[in-house]
């Protein structure tokens, strides 16, 4: 074994700058995708309870479509196909200049890479979240729904005010697991060119061949974010 380890190849100059901007992008994409995933999960839970059978069937079809294809293929579809389907005006605006939206490392929040990644990862995890919530909903006593209906609550309010909070409590641990999974899965977005942590580690590797140090730094960053996120999310439960 002969590994000349030299941390200065990673922790100084441009490589350090790249890693830090990669960290900022990973945090931003995780946040954006988490928001999308949460909305998607709540909407899917609502659609699953729809009184119309075709709506329920279509929802289940969409869920199994997302669950049974690789995230990477979905990202390629959103990036190469989905973006092209957006209205011309919106595309022009997204690729235009918005200095306030630019993260460190020249990554714009509206760049096709960022938008496709946030939407792709968000939708993917949203589906898995809705599956966890469904498991939590199955454990909620049927009387809860009937009681809400007898109080005059509509379907949407019954779901968001009565059923989902209880489902979330039943399935809190797996739900937290999905948000952690989301953060780790943002690493896949490097394959459509989003300059997050993994992308920057590769860039350092091709810049000065310090593969070990670069991937070690990236690994430490992911472990640290995951550790902090888990503490934050699980601490909320005790409060």
């Amino acid at each position, binding site marked *: 074994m002969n590994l000349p380890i030299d941390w200065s190849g990673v922790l100084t100059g441009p490589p350090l700058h790249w890693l830090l901007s990669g960290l900022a992008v990973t945090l931003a994409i995780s946040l954006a995708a988490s928001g999308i995933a949460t909305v998607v999960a709540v909407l899917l839970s609502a659609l699953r309870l729809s009184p119309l059978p075709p709506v329920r069937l279509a929802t289940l079809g969409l869920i199994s479509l997302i669950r*049974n294809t690789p995230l990477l293929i979905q990202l*390629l579809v959103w990036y190469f196909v989905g973006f092209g389907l957006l209205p011309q005006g919106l595309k022009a605006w997204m690729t235009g200049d918005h200095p306030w939206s630019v993260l460190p490392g020249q990554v714009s929040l509206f760049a096709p890479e960022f938008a496709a990644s946030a939407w792709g990862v968000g939708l993917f995890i949203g589906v898995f979240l809705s599956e966890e919530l469904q498991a939590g909903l199955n454990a909620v006593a049927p009387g809860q729904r009937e009681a809400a209906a007898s109080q005059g609550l509509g379907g949407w309010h019954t779901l968001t005010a009565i059923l989902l909070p209880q489902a979330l409590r039943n399935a809190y641990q797996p739900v937290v697991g999905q948000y952690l999974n989301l953060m*780790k899965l943002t*690493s896949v977005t*490097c394959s459509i060119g989003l300059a997050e942590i993994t992308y920057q580690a*590769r860039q350092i590797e091709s810049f000065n061949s310090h*593969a070990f140090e670069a991937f070690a730094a990236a690994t430490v960053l*992911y472990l640290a974010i995951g550790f902090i996120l888990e503490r934050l999310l699980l601490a909320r439960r005790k409060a």
Partner: protein
Amino acid sequence: MGLDFTVILKNWDYFLWGRTFQGETGGLLLTVLMALAAGCLSLALGIGLALASWLGPRPLRAVLTFLADLVRSVPLVLVIFWIYFLVPALFKTKVPGALSVILALAWFSSGAVLHATLAGLEALPRGHREAGIASGLTDGQVFTAILLPQAARNLVPSYVALFASMIKDTSLAFILNVPELTMTASQVNTRAQIYPAEIFLFTAAVYFVLCQGLSWAAHGLAVRLQPGQML
């Protein structure tokens, strides 16, 4: 939006086996081979670890499950890069991209196999182990002759489900330019230029058929393997 699937018809053999007959295994064939190889490795490793933590002393179990969780808290993409860049540096041999991905998948999934196997074993009534030992069987014999066949009812379906997610994860070989299904799709896309929708939707459909089929198989197995059902 009009879709024109002639690009798929013109390249169907490339999607299925890439340049296999020119000496470079590829396409869907490589995807399935990689998933099978990684699946066998992670089954062997995961069941071995489960055995060790089931039969070994308590602390060993805590250490093994901690390590399995630690492995899974690093993104799989990074594990692939670790193996691809580090093994050559350590052993002075070049690792082909496909092998790096197989090893990374096996390493990553054996933790899941460990958890699934332990859960399957723990679902069995304690009395079975005690009865076996009272009959004069050794711990190892109790495991292979009494516990494992029963646990298989719960385990086989979860292994099949894990295999489906392994097939999806092989797509990450794309990042090392390994010519599996996703990479072949991307190559065809670069060559044809104007048919990304047809190409990527077709590729997604291929993965969907494979994985949905496996998940139905897992479900069917779970039903058929229940006690009282004929095999």
